[in-house]
């Protein structure tokens, strides 16, 4: 038996392929949307992976340091370091801000890391060019997505930094590239006030009789000195010793230090389940809408193609063609349209759309497989209207009168 669907497609292949390409662009957008969601989740995971931490110690009752502000004293790490099961600790600060380079600025997540060596929690685990930070001040390691190059001079607040190293895929959960600078510089950047604000704060302190007592010399200077330093960090990153369970160490820190501690899985839940949840829902809604639109378009195209063949279908029925042959004709065309659309969509999403999106687009093979079957299901369902129309055709229509 010859393939009626195949012959019909080959007869008007230009129209069919053109329609498939149009559908493919829509499928390409749908796959890209799924890729953007996967990219967001991956961004969140690489942020955790790249921190090299097993535990995040943050301000009590906060979801810090990524989902909520968190502030703890910068000497907290010492007492945590001495606890059983803790191998390494390191302070860290995170501040999302615009970093200037010459005339333009880039949105980045500035990360303050403690002095140490590669492998220290918070440090970029690998570089693609240059070296790690070796000086105590004014050196930076930047993610390549920021557009910065080795030797570039960056401005963070009032200070200038030289890019000495480049990383790749070091991004915040929002996809902003990370710029690593020494912790002391980052602490200053986080709380640094402008000169007028400093002057005004000193004047107000001097005017406060509680701090400016004639009987206590040096009190005012001490208070002002305490106001000019920032003894806080956003979190302490902890690596645990092998043989210890992260949850046990975390429970010990919670109990004895009265701080909030998150394990890797808890932090992942915060990032994926809370921080990017709204964005994920938004993308999911886009996916639903695009799927509905794709279905409507396929249904409309197949219905139109079928209406154009009503006379032929009447003749086919009159000469004894079985309903299943006519159903197969329509459904095979719908599936062929879906296959063309999917192939075009996959190529478009991979080669044209993903590279030009500013955020990371992760096109996973499993998503493509799911997408393919979803397109097939949509095409089959979308052909039902046309099939109903075809089955209603009266073979008597082929006979005049």
């Amino acid at each position, binding site marked *: 038996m*010859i393939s009626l669907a195949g012959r*019909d497609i080959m007869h008007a292949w230009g129209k069919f392929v053109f329609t498939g390409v149009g559908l493919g662009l829509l499928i390409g957008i749908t796959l890209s949307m799924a890729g953007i969601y996967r990219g967001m989740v991956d961004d969140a995971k690489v942020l955790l992976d790249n921190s090299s931490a097993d535990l995040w110690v943050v301000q009590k009752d906060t979801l810090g340091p990524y989902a909520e502000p968190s502030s703890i004293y910068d000497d907290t790490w010492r007492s945590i370091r001495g606890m059983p099961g803790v191998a390494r600790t390191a302070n860290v600060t995170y501040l999302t801000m615009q970093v200037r380079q010459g005339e333009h600025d880039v949105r980045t997540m500035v990360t303050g890391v403690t002095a140490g060596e590669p492998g220290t929690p918070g440090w970029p685990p690998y570089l693609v060019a240059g070296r790690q930070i070796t000086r105590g001040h004014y050196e930076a390691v930047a993610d390549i997505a920021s557009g910065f190059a080795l030797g570039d001079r960056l401005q963070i607040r009032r200070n200038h930094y030289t890019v000495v190293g480049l990383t790749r895929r070091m991004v915040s959960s929002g996809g902003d590239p990370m710029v690593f600078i020494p912790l002391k510089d980052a602490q200053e950047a986080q709380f640094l006030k402008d000169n007028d604000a400093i002057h005004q704060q000193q004047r107000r302190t001097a005017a406060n009789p509680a701090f400016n007592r004639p009987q206590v010399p040096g009190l005012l200077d001490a208070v002002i000195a305490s106001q000019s330093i920032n003894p806080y960090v956003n979190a302490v990153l902890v690596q645990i010793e092998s043989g210890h369970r992260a949850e046990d160490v975390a429970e010990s820190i919670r109990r004895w230090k009265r701080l909030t501690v998150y394990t890797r899985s808890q932090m992942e839940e915060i990032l994926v389940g809370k921080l990017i949840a709204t964005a994920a829902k938004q993308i999911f809604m886009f996916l639903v809408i695009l799927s509905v639109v794709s279905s409507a378009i396929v249904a409309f195209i197949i219905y139109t193609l079928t209406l154009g063949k009503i006379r032929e279908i009447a003749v086919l029925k009159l000469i*004894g*063609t079985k309903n299943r042959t006519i159903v197969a004709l329509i459904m095979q065309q719908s599936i062929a349209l879906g296959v063309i659309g999917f192939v075009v969509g996959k190529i478009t999403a991979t080669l044209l759309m993903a590279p030009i999106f500013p955020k990371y687009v992760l096109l996973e093979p499993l998503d493509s497989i799911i997408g393919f079957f979803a397109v097939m299901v949509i095409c089959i369902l979308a052909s039902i209207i046309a099939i109903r129309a075809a089955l209603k055709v009266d073979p*008597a229509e082929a006979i*005049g*009168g």
Partner: protein
Amino acid sequence: MGKGILIEGLKKRYGSGDTAVDALKGVDMQVAPGEVVGLVGPSGSGKSTLLKALGAVIEPTGGRMTLGGEVIYDNGWKVKDLRALRRDKIGFIFQAPYLIPFLDVTDNVALLPMLAGIPNAEARKRAVELFKALDVEPRAKAMPSQLSGGEQQRVAIARGLVNRPPVILADEPTAPLDSERALAVIRMLNDMARKFETAIIVVTHDEKIIPTFKRIYHIRDGVTYEEAGEGRSFD
């Protein structure tokens, strides 16, 4: 009569009650194998209803029909699969050729035997044999849009004949053709009727071809009456 077409007291009523219309009021017809008869009548006389009832696409309300020796209707359908009946026992030739535009000429004709389960090669062989008889063999690989009106109608005739049905129903097959081509089509139908022992009913308004029938059935207000035709030569 063992083969051919035998219609006895065939009735068809549309609607019911006060609005009921009797399109066929007891039609009697008989067409022998190898015979071509004309069915003529004015618009609304019941020609198309009779053709549709004979073609098993509408159900009569009474009477009896025998096609190719098989009683297919006797106050109710006597065959379960009407599609198979149409495919295997009835050939259709329409006013317009209605060829499937996305199949080439051979497959347009071979499709019917293929639907009946005959292997593709055998089905195409049958089609080509008919093309030789109908003088369209050189156009066997052409698409319908590449054929002239006369060629398309000859291919449509081949499609009607390819399953070697005992009965062919031709609905105004010469309407779109000029006199010469119209007579050629009727000549072909007569040749094929004789060659394949097929009973053919030709519904027509066409004054050019009416004199060629040896027997003519007139239908008016749902009733048929037979008349001897002139049976003129085609030359």
